């Protein structure tokens, strides 16, 4: 289901070009609008579809196994923190789905590590990562090690 771009909707803003992981959304020189230059490298990941402010991009199933006449439309809203899908079958059946995409205002809950207190030498010498052991266990117990867990590494054939 590679993407295609509706001629009358695209305004050539380039958001799709900016986001496509496959580098295949390019701006057509003649029409100054976007199109998929290499459909056989399109993963139908919908990154461009979600990013297009004009809803100008759609997808039609890969011709080598998907018949015509379906559609899967999406609306992703970072403000609302939701994504809405509308699936239309070849036979006309429709299904709608709505999911959250985040539980927090976008990006704000991630700390800036340059601003947190740096690690002590002891911590550097330990096996702990940032904010551990806090995150490892409910009981705030320490990191699992071979010793704490009564284990050793042994050569040979074990199953």
């Amino acid at each position, binding site marked *: 289901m590679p993407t295609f771009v509706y001629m009358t909707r695209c305004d050539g803003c380039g958001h799709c070009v900016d986001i496509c*992981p496959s580098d295949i959304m390019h701006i057509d020189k003649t029409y100054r609008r976007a199109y998929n230059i290499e459909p056989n*490298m399109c*993963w139908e990941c919908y990154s461009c579809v979600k990013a297009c402010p004009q809803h100008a991009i759609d997808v039609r199933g890969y011709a080598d196994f998907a018949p015509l006449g379906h559609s899967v439309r999406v609306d992703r809203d970072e403000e609302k923190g939701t994504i809405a*899908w509308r699936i239309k079958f070849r036979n006309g059946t429709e299904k709608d789905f709505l999911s959250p995409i985040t539980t927090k205002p976008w990006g704000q809950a991630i700390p800036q590590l340059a601003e947190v207190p740096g690690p002590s030498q002891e911590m550097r010498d330990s096996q702990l990562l940032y904010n551990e052991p806090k995150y490892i266990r409910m009981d705030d117990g320490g990191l699992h090690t071979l010793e704490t867990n009564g284990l050793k590494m042994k050569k040979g054939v074990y199953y």
Partner: protein
Amino acid sequence: MAYKTIVEDGIDILVVGAGLGGTGAAWEARFWGQDKKIVIAEKANIDRSGAVAQGLYAINCYMGTRWGENNPEDHVRYARIDLMGLVREDLLFDMARHVDSTVHQFEEWGLPIMRNPKTGTYLREGRWQIMIHGESYKPIVAEAAKKSADKVFNRICVTHLLMDDSKENRVAGAVGFNVRTGNYHVFKSKTVICGAGGASNIFKPRSVGEGSGRTWYAPWSSASAYGLMIEAGAKMTQMENRIVLARFKDGYGPVGAYFLHLKTYTQNGLGEEYESKWFPELQKMVGKEYLDPEASHLTHRPIPTCLRNHALISEVNAGRGPIHMVTMHAFQDPHLEEVGWENFLGMTVGQAVLWAATDVDPKYENPELTTSEPYVMGSHATCSGAWCSGPEDISPPEYFWGYNRMTTIEGLFGAGDAVGGTPHAFSSGSFTEGRLAAKAACKYIDDGKAEGIVVSDEQISRRRKEIYTPLEHYKIYRNEIVAGDVNPHYINPKQGLDRLQKLMDEYCGGVTVSYMTNEKLLHIGLKKLKILEEDLQSIAAKDIHELLRAWELKHRHRAAECVTQHTLFRKETRWPGYYYRGDAMKVDDENWHVLTVSRRDPNTGEYTMEKAPCYHLVGEDE
């Protein structure tokens, strides 16, 4: 060429490829390297790059230690048996003991993790898997990486690692080009964390034409992690252990949520359970130690993924296909129906599109399953990748050379698919490995190991020349012909990819040959790979986009060669259902209960193969 050379100097930590591993590395590096210069060089846009670009509906590696669900060693045992005995248990234990901390962080950042309404714990899909609304998984971890990095260079296709000209076998950064401007980018760095991911499209896909973009692993998973590291002379491990996945037919939608949460099950074309029928024969091939259905039933020890594939493949070969996933029962429950659909909308939209296009409603019709073409990666039920040092408090001497997740090249670290021996890390484990590598890289620098690095102008200009050769080649020879892509002087990247995929398919165990290979076939494959390598010197790119494809192909080619060398080396069929060595159809623990390790000499192109011992995690008194 008019392209500029842009040098970024004085980098402490260069993250090459910011997928799940790379974002973890960049994020964590800032904590341990508060004043260090952290730079990301990424082929795409880190907001939607890598395997998780379209999201994930599950986090497949979570212990739940805080709820008493599993200990790290339980996961190691799981991964061990699933991989037929051969994994790096030090790396796995290490990943498992940290992974929960990664996941809890994700939740704090806003990733919607589903909860079990009764217990309040994360909603389990299976013993190791938890369910998420993960459409924005990648944008969220990218946000974290951006918070930590000094600079993010998007759209840089990294083509080569830079090597220290003053000290043998020490990394010194990386080079590449910007796939939009065409500019040459030089990153001089004390350490490099390679998170450039796994490989699709090395073997001929089942899909054809337009549909060949519909791979399970993303089409942009270009084997760059392997290509970069092998080229630089890093040792690799278990590269033969390519993975074949049971997937919904054509759309390649994952089956985990279906098997584990929806409790759907498979049947053959006659509506029969078939899996267990193949177990007796399989047991003869692999031994009771690796397949003991009764014990599995009692202890919830899994039937290894490859062996489940084997049953599916054998049943189809026997003429009793197609295999169906029985969804019609589960989908009567509206909650499960919703999960079934959202599972795909969240990570493989194409499967939903396909069902819509073919009027398949799994509530009324059981969809078909198939086995995919092989993929090469290191974080699902497979563990190809670089041979890395483990952590000092766990690793035996053969597995330890100073810095966690450091490859056999000094200062070069890996994370995620790049690291060998650590299957079942998945997204969360890959991010965790990135964090571990970042801490170790900071330590490496702080220990003074990166002093005195020299990168000669010769090295920089040699790579520059090499990078643009395909564009030059096109310019020179294009006008010798009237038009079209048939030229006696060059092939284009798509033509080269077709050649690579076809030969890997036919000689190294792809779908067309039902995953069968043998010594003779592998030797022919190597010969053809060598000739292809010569032709890749004559590859032509008509524009920068094709230049990107040319370099992806070169990375894929190198990885494919390494896969073939390893497959030739291991004279047994360790993972029936992933591939078969027709000339050695059994598991042979006496000779092959070892990890395979290869090194390609960057000067001669010759491979050296060795066996490394397999250490297991056992009870203190065992």
